Every structure is written in C-alpha cells, then in structure tokens.
C-alpha cells in the first residue's frame, strides 16, 4: 500500500536567540503513514514531536524536506488536515453547533448540509444535548469532544492531534481513549497523534514512532500488532508500553540532564522486593 502521509527528510531549525548557531528541532525525519492508520509520536518534552505535527499541519515551515498528503506536497495550512490541540481552541463567541459549522462555512458548504454534518458529528461525540451551549459552560472533556467533532466534520484527509487529552483528568481521559478508538474505526480516518503518555500510545496506535531529542529524530518505530478494538486491561499492551518506556528512558534522562546539569543522578531503580516473591532463587 502506498503511503498516504509521506514525511521525507524533514528538518527544522530555529534561528538562535543569543548569538549561537541555529538550534535544530528536527533532523532528517522520515515517516510514512498508510491510509486509515493510527500513528502515535512519543518522546520526551522538547524532542520536536509537536514541531513535526505543526509542520504537517502547515502552521510552521520546515527548513528542509517534504511532506506529502495523498501524493500532494503540502504548502501552508489547509482544511485537508484537521487539527485538535491540547486546549480545545473553540471560539467562545459561538455556541457548540456554530463552532463545528464555522470551518464548513469557510469551505463553502451550504447551510443545510453544514447543519446536518455538524449534528452528525456532535452525535458521534455524544454532545447533541449541548448544541446550543457556549464554550464556558462545558467541562474540559466536553470541549475536547467538540474540538474532535469540529475536526472530523471538516472531513480532513488526515487528523492531527497534539496531546489532546493531556490536560484532562485520568477518568475522562480513559473514556475518551475508548471513544476515540471507536470514532477512528467508524470514521476511517488517518490519525497522527502526539503524546508523552506511553500507555496512551500503546493503547491507541497501530505504530508508535519513538523520538529522541537534540536534535529531534525518530529513534525507532514500533508496530503494535494487537487488533482493535482493544481492551485497556490487555497485558500485551502493558508490555508494549514498557518497551516504549524502556526506549524512552535514556532520552528522558538525557532531557533532564540537559535541564539540570550533571548534578542530577538517576535514583536507584530497584524496587524493594520481598524475598517471599522471589521464587526460584537459590534452587
């Protein structure tokens, strides 16, 4: 299958702030995503995973490299790539329904169809009852639901999600994970999802791209072959999460050392063990 989203040799550096050379945020990142695939980008903070998402969204220009969506090279932001931000980014002067309709208006879709589409996706995220509510009347989780419905209603070729559940409480997050999985299967969307939560990545993704920092590159792409829909309790997923965590450990340490300097030492990572549980020793 041909790649649906093709990121080739992508680099991004920022001009230095105080005299030094430019800072490389991304270096030579190459990633291919198939149509309908769910790919998570995980890595320590500052590894450039959000930058990559912004470049794909067209919100930031790359220094080198090409991004193709469905074979076409992207230039600038466009409605063919829907984005869900960490904060819902809803418009406070519009009610929920109008928020979802707004991008459709810019896309030149007729009023009747706008309404119908908005209501359809509002039902998909179970918020029909709140169509007339304003943003400040909604909880954080509800706002993200609206943001997801808004992005889906644009019928984008690809859905970009930048830590969409990071600011939510754990219970709400768990429920939204299950729902996103279901929505993804219903809507048949290609999803690129940035997170620093390895369990989230293991639960949702078909493949997980693990980043290393300074400069940001993809260290390893880990397929998670377990079929959807998945169960949170699944042991294999927990194992996959541990593999990601292990890959990330050095990166996270590197990031902390980068911030705190050599003074920082990793605490001894031995869990206190009970001799009783230590079966098999000394046989």
């Amino acid at each position: 299958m041909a790649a649906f989203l093709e990121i080739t040799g992508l680099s991004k550096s920022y001009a230095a702030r105080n005299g030094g050379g430019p800072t490389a945020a991304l270096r030579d990142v190459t990633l291919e995503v198939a149509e309908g695939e769910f790919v998570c980008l995980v890595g320590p903070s500052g590894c450039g995973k959000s930058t990559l998402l912004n470049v794909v969204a067209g919100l930031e220009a790359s220094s080198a490299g090409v991004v193709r969506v469905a074979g076409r090279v992207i230039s600038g932001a466009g409605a063919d790539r829907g984005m869900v931000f960490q904060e819902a980014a809803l418009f406070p002067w519009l009610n929920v329904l109008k928020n979802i309709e707004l991008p459709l208006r810019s896309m030149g879709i007729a009023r009747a169809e706008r309404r119908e589409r908005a209501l359809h996706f509002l039902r998909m995220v179970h918020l029909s009852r709140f169509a007339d509510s304003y943003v400040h009347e909604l909880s954080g989780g509800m706002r993200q639901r609206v943001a997801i419905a808004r992005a889906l209603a644009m019928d984008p070729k690809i859905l970009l999600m930048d830590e969409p559940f990071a600011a939510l409480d754990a219970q709400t997050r768990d429920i939204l994970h299950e729902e996103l999985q279901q929505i993804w299967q219903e809507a048949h969307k290609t999803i690129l999802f940035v997170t620093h939560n390895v369990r989230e990545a293991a639960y949702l993704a078909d493949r997980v791209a693990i980043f290393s920092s300074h400069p940001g590159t993809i260290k390893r792409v880990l397929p998670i072959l377990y079929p959807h829909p998945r169960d949170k309790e699944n042991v294999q997923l927990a194992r996959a999460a541990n593999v990601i965590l292990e890959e990330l450990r050095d990166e996270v340490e590197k990031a902390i050392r980068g911030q705190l300097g050599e003074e920082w030492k990793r605490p001894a990572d031995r869990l206190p063990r009970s001799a009783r549980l230590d079966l098999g020793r000394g046989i």
Partner: protein
Amino acid sequence: MPSPEDVVAAFARGVRDGSFLAGVVVSMRRILIGYGISLVVGIGLGLAIGRFKLLEDTVGSLVFGLQTIPSICWLPFAILWFGLSESAILFVVVMGALLSIVIATDDGVKNTPPLLIRAGRTMGMRGVTLYARVILPSALPAIVSGMKLGWSFAWRSLMAGELLFVSAGLGHLLTVGRDLNDMSLVIAVMIVIVLVGLVVDRLVFGTAERVIRRRWGFVGARA
C-alpha cells in the same frame, strides 16, 4: 449659587417650553454623526494598525501621542479650518472619540489568543476570512469597551464644541445660562447632560456588555 428649588424650577421651565428637548435633539444629531464617523474610521484604523506592522510603527505611535491631548485643544484647529460651523463641532467630537476607539480596537486585535488564530488557519482560513471570522469577533469585547470610552469622550467634546457659537445644542444652552447670569439654568442643563449620558451608557453599552460577558463566559464564576 442657586437654591435647589430654583434649579428644579429652571428644570421644569426648560422641559415645559421645549428648549431642553430641542437642545437634546440637536446635540444628539451631532453626536450621532460625529460618533458614527469615529466608529467607522476608528475601528477601521484600529484593525489596520493591528494587522500591518508598517502602519503600527508610523500611525500607531502617533495615535498614542495624540490620545494625550484633551479634545478642547482641538478647538483652535477646528475654528481655523472650518470656521464657526457645524463641521468645527463635528471635528472636535471626532477627535475626542476617535483615538480611544483606535487604541482599543488595536489592543483587541493584538490580544487575540494565538491558539485561536492557529485553529482558524488549520481550518483553511487566511487573510480577510481569518480576520472576519476569528480576529474581529475575538477583539469584540475590547472594541466595545473602546466604544464606550469613545462615547463619553465624544459627549464631553460635543459640549465643549457647542460652547463655541450659537449652535442650539445643550452646550449652547449652558452659554445662554452664563450670558443671562442664570446659574439655575446652567445647573439644570448640566443635569440634562448627565441624564442623557447615563441613559445612553446604560441602555446601549450596558446591554452590549452584558450580552458579551454572558456569551464569553466572563460571568461564568457565578454559575
């Protein structure tokens, strides 16, 4: 200093013989024109300054400088340019109201949350569309407070302008009171000025602000 009874009597006389009503009508007509011009030019200019760096560096700083000038200082200008005419009064009104509207609009544009602009761009909006659908509505609360401020400046400038000549407005009635040495008339007219200012403030701006506060969730803490 006149007694309260004298003021009440002067007030009643002015209301009865219609001179207050006539004054209010004339003044309101002027302020509607002058304030209307200020709104159109002020919001337009504010949006442009907020959008274009070049305008900000040039006109922007000039606006901030001029804002410090009390509107009464424009009187000599007005008389030299327009003579003792309707246009002179309108000029003073516009100069009084315009700048605060420009500044508030520019502020509102600059304070648009970047996240909302980014969200708009990922929806394929750019240029005028982005401005009309995201930046302008986001700036609306700031623009309304600028309009409110502009209104009170316009009202004050109008009264100053009307003192200029036989202009038939409320300001002119003040001059009449002075010329006749009728302090009770002066105070009665001042009361009318306060009342008109208050009514417009409450009715027009009070309503607009209430709607916006509710919509934007600024009063959400109560719920």
